[in-house]
């Protein structure tokens, strides 16, 4: 993906997003609401809503996706690039047994007989660890729990051994014990198949457990990226540092003030020009009205900031306030 930009009408939502996924890569895409993380994924899938336009360059296995006609894109979607959404109920047909739906996902892209497609579907339901796959074939989505539905969606996404699996907050709606099992399953299935994983989440801990690299998005811009150990261990962008500090509930004594990021995430289209974080940033400088270029770090990491957090003392940029008024 190179210089991907997405606009809703005249409002830019994603700016010049560039990254690459190789087979077997596991990349986490993190950001808060309005960061553009889901929109970037939809653009890759060619599923942007009406009125949204994407520009730049998105390539999967040598095929450029953005200028592909809908029909050719539909052939690729689900076959080479598949996606799992946050809410499984919206991704499933409520009036069709799940076995038929998974079989349909198989038959859509593979030249197989109906019975072969059903046999493959059963095997997939077994792989996603649904109890009693034979019975599961005949159940309707409403008869399944949220975690089981999400497993069915995962089975459909993996039906054609896609090169890339995009998961958009797949466990956010799930309970924590179910989430743990779902993450272990994703972990195992993408490892078995060598599938490249793009995992979108707002949860830093989940991403750190599952992914090797991370992309940090804020206001539609990539602000920092690199190996997780590097980016989370020694963040250079003040937003990454602030996000880590604000998430670190278990690292402060109970009840003592948490580190916060000033203000709140602006609405879409309301981010400042230049660096999108500059109106909340404790390290902002006059030159931040310009968009900072990506600065390379060791181990393939990079960040977009004119006044980065010193690599030795990351959280020092943020003080623990006693109380704040706005």
């Amino acid at each position, binding site marked *: 993906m190179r210089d991907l930009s997405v606009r809703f009408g005249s409002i830019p939502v994603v700016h010049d997003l560039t990254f690459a996924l190789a087979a077997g890569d596991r990349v986490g895409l993190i950001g808060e609401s309005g960061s553009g993380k889901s929109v970037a994924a939809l653009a890759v899938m060619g599923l942007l809503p009406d009125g949204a336009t994407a520009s730049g360059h998105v390539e999967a296995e040598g095929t450029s996706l953005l200028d592909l006609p809908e029909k050719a894109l539909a052939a690729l979607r689900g076959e080479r690039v598949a996606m799992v959404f946050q809410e499984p109920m919206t991704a499933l047909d409520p009036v069709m047994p799940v076995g038929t739906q998974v079989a349909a996902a198989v038959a859509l892209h593979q030249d197989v007989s109906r019975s072969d497609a059903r046999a493959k579907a059963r095997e997939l339901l077994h792989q996603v660890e649904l109890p009693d796959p034979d019975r599961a074939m005949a159940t309707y989505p409403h008869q399944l729990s949220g975690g089981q539905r999400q497993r069915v969606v995962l089975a459909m996404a993996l039906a054609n051994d896609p090169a890339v699996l995009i998961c958009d907050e797949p466990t956010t709606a799930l309970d924590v014990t179910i989430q743990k099992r779902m993450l272990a399953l994703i972990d195992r299935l993408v490892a078995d198949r060598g599938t490249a994983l793009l995992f979108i989440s707002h949860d830093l801990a989940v991403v750190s457990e599952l992914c090797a690299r991370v992309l940090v998005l804020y206001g539609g811009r990539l602000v920092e990226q690199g190996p997780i150990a590097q980016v989370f*261990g020694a963040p250079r962008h003040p937003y990454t540092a602030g996000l880590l500090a604000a998430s670190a509930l278990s690292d402060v004594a109970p009840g003592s003030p948490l580190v916060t990021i000033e203000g709140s995430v602006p609405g879409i289209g309301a981010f400042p020009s230049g660096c999108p974080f500059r109106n909340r940033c404790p390290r902002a400088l006059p030159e931040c009205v310009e968009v900072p270029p990506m600065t390379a770090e060791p181990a393939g990491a990079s960040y977009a900031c004119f006044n980065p957090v010193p690599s030795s003392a990351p959280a020092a940029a943020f003080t623990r306030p006693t109380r704040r008024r706005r």
Partner: protein
Amino acid sequence: MSDEVVLSVRGVTREFVRRRPLFGARPEPVRALAGVDLDVRRGERFGIVGESGSGKTTLARLLMGLDSPTAGTITLDGVAVHDKSQSELRFLRQRMQMVFQDPMSSLDPRMRVRDIVLEPLIGLRLDENREARLAELLSSVGLSPDAAERFPHQFSGGQRQRVAIARALAPRPQVLVADEPVSALDVSVRAQTLNLLTDLTSRLGLTLVFVSHDLSVVRYLCDRVAVMRRGAIVEQGVTAEVYADPQHAYTKELLASVPVLRHRPASLAGGRDE
């Protein structure tokens, strides 16, 4: 925190009768709560954790008198609240208020913040200098005075939750019940809201009942915790002790399932053990 019990729950059961299907027998009632006992002490922050369907929200609604138990008693300052009609609950509303998960649906979109925040005072017919109280409330939750004339949609999620907190504090309650108040918020805003809740409870001497599915938030915020599963409390105790040495198998599973940040800046990792 004192040993004085503010809120006492004894043997509370709540069953919901399911609709009779078109054919067949009436189904068994669903038991959302089955014999819950707990005591909340004055000034403490009490956490109720559980996954979906554990009955934690049903319990919160019963505490607030928004619903009545099938069996059992709930008392606030020694006064039974479980068998009172809504009109008899005025004293309860004055002493206990609630903050909900989604501030967008708990705030009337057509009301200005001024009217939202002052509504409990008017509803409870409390005599007070309302302008002064409004200013005081907005300032205590960190909103500027000009917020009073604006509508809920003109605020961000975190600010809307501040408005909801200001409204809850208006009648000077002793107990605040919060049901997942930070679940819908972005991480950077969640930290601000948690700081605000900590600050307000200690400054106003509030008792907080905090209902959440998020174990990390409860560990950070609450002095004591009750772990719920399928309508029953499986374990309760001092938060630090329950987290350090869980006794019930379910509590152990729950704690083991919490995702852990694998890498973190040295400045953060220094404070506590993994």
